[in-house]
């Protein structure tokens, strides 16, 4: 059996590695020709860290991320509601997680040795891109995921349901807060603020400029009802 995975984001590459581990050949097609940092971070949930570790990527992940030690829920004014230690959770900084123009997170361009994931070059890639130009095929992520292969493969499913919430992300350079390993979620069901450190200054550079020692880059997300 040979499997084709459309989209070289974190989900597509993990699926390909899982298939490889099961002895199934997988080939990943990605339409974006260059991997470029978008300037965001991502917090990997315990399930994801567990699976990436099982795939042999635990050490690589540890080298580019900050382990989240504690998850804290707070009122929108900052008062703590609940805080507890977390297991298997990590935050990754943006330089290692380039993103496509449509916003889906991609993993590092350096692939693990010996894996069956191949870069998207050559005739097949050209065919895929040509299909994209004609609107016949797109990747699995992005703002309109159902305009792509899902629409072609499952035309009866209709458009995805939307919960009327919008998410903004940002990565400011900021002073450390709390123990530098705490993820803070503040607000309520209609308005929420999420913050977690993704990289420390003494081991990172942004646009070539060294950061103040001890500072970190929290990534910030806001969810609002529209």
């Amino acid at each position, binding site marked *: 059996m040979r499997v084709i995975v459309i989209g070289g984001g974190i989900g597509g590459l*993990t699926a390909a*590695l*899982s298939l490889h*581990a*099961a002895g199934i050949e997988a080939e990943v097609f990605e339409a974006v020709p260059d991997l470029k940092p978008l300037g965001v971070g991502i917090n990997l*949930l*315990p*399930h994801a860290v*567990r*699976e990436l570790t*099982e*795939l042999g990527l635990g050490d690589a992940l540890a080298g580019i991320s900050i382990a989240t030690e504690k998850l804290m*829920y*707070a*009122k*929108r*004014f900052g*008062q*703590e*509601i*609940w805080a*507890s230690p977390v*297991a*298997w959770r990590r935050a990754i900084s943006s330089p290692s997680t380039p993103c496509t123009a449509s916003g889906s997170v991609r993993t590092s361009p350096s692939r693990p040795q010996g894996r069956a994931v191949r870069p998207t070059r050559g005739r097949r890639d050209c065919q895929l891109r040509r299909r994209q130009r004609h609107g016949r095929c797109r990747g699995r992520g992005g703002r309109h995921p159902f305009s792509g292969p899902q629409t072609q493969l499952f035309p009866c499913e209709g458009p995805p349901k939307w919960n009327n919430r919008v998410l903004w992300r940002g990565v400011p350079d900021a002073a450390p807060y709390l123990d530098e390993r705490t993820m803070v*979620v*503040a*607000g*309520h*069901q209609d308005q*929420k603020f999420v913050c977690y450190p993704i990289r420390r200054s003494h081991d990172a550079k942004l646009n070539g400029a060294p950061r103040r020692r001890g500072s970190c880059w929290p990534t910030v997300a806001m969810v609002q009802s529209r």
Partner: protein
Amino acid sequence: MQLAENRAPDGFDDVTAIISRAELEEIAASYKRMAGSDKETLNTRASLSVG
């Protein structure tokens, strides 16, 4: 978070004055159980990606 917003929309000095410690612990535990992210479940179940 929503419970705290409902019971004290203008904030609080001590969260246990509006939500008891037992209630907080039960909410946290049930969420982890439902999400499957409690430490015991996460560390003992089979991998989803590697058989």
